[in-house]
């Protein structure tokens, strides 16, 4: 399809009629990746690089659907390593020989102390992340105790990420006052078997459905650059759209030593930006949060994603790796003249 005609159609849908784009349009946008990464011979193609216009459109869609503010959040691992699952990207899997040494649960005192630090810094939300398949009784007790402790000793809202849930567990967390639950689909259903064999994509989907049913906000996204095709990125985004997520974290693979993906070529930064814009155009209503790997994959082009569809960032360090300093990100946003929403994490 003529890329200009496609982008005209997508713009009319998203900005004039305020409608979601069709599946066919989503896959056609994914196919523009061939022009973005130069797979099409420039001497024979009649089309210019569509990326600048795609990013510009994604930015205008973000402003129209979500407003101009960018949300900053930080994440805290309260149980690191030792996960029995074999997600090929993850350094916390016990099935791989990685450099991450398993650590015990943080104590109530450690969690509360960190939460108070967060509150003192102006944060409004506190997100606990556990490297587990899903909560057993001990993990549920930890989650409920930590949630109660944070609520009783701070004014912070609590968010969690603790793997697969049963309906009863989701209900219990919702009743305990957990505002948002993160569980990434991670990859398209058609690609997921190449990433994980110890649980299924449908199990992840089901957990997100349970979260929705309880009234907790759904936070679900994925990782780009694991070897999937651009069409599979569109497939993932379309699936996420069905979940009506409040937030969609977009991670970029940072190949971890000892994991099956340790030798995976780092995603080309222009393809990463294409992915950000693609997600925004397919899921215009959600907060699209830049997450892990952006420093490694995008380098100096991180600002382009903020002006190309993203309206959230995880700032500071990640679960097992380091990020840029918060001041670097604040400086970038200041230079872009992008207003920052109230801090929603541990800063």
């Amino acid at each position: 399809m003529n890329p200009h005609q496609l982008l005209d159609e997508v713009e009319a849908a998203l900005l004039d009629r305020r409608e979601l784009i069709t599946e066919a349009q989503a896959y056609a946008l994914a196919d523009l990746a061939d022009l973005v990464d130069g797979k099409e011979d420039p001497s024979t193609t009649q089309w210019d690089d569509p990326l600048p216009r795609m990013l510009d459109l994604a930015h205008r869609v973000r402003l129209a659907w979500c407003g101009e503010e960018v949300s900053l959040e930080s994440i805290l691992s309260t149980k690191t390593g030792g996960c029995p699952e074999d997600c090929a990207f993850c350094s916390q899997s016990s099935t791989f020989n990685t450099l991450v040494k398993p650590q015990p649960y943080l104590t109530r005192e450690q969690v509360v102390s960190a939460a108070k630090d967060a509150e003192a810094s102006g944060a409004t939300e506190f997100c606990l992340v556990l490297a587990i398949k899903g909560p057993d009784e001990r993990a549920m007790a930890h989650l409920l105790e930590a949630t109660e402790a944070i609520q009783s000793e701070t004014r912070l809202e609590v968010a969690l990420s603790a793997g697969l849930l049963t309906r009863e567990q989701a209900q219990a967390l919702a009743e305990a006052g957990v505002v948002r639950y993160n569980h990434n689909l991670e990859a398209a259903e058609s690609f997921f078997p190449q990433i994980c064999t110890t649980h299924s994509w449908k199990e992840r989907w089901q957990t997100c459905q349970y979260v929705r049913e309880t009234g907790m906000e759904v936070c679900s996204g994925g990782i780009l650059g694991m070897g999937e095709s651009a069409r599979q990125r569109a497939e993932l985004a379309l699936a996420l759209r069905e979940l009506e997520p409040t937030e969609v974290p977009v991670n970029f693979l940072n190949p971890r030593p000892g994991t099956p993906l340790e030798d995976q070529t780092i995603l080309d930064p222009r393809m990463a930006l294409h992915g950000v814009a693609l997600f925004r155009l397919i899921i215009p209503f959600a907060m699209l949060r830049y997450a892990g790997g952006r420093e490694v994959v995008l380098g100096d082009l991180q600002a382009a994603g903020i002006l190309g569809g993203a309206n959230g960032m995880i700032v500071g360090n990640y679960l097992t790796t380091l990020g840029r300093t918060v001041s670097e990100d604040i400086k970038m946003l200041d230079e872009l003249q992008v207003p920052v929403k109230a801090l929603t994490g541990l800063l």
Partner: protein
Amino acid sequence: MDTVAGAFCGACGGAAGAADHAGCAQRLRYDPPRFCAACGFRLDVQVYPAGVVSSCRRCERPARKAR
């Protein structure tokens, strides 16, 4: 960050003077040290949003690194 400030490389645990650690230094830009600089033993590492707390069970030496 100097990856080989001690006797052992924080990224790979190898002896500081035994190999070229240029790649290790690059890795430590976005990875916390995983090995004790004094003895080369695997560290216990807890990453926080604004820092890293690590300790060596062999040296029993806690260390906190701001980030």
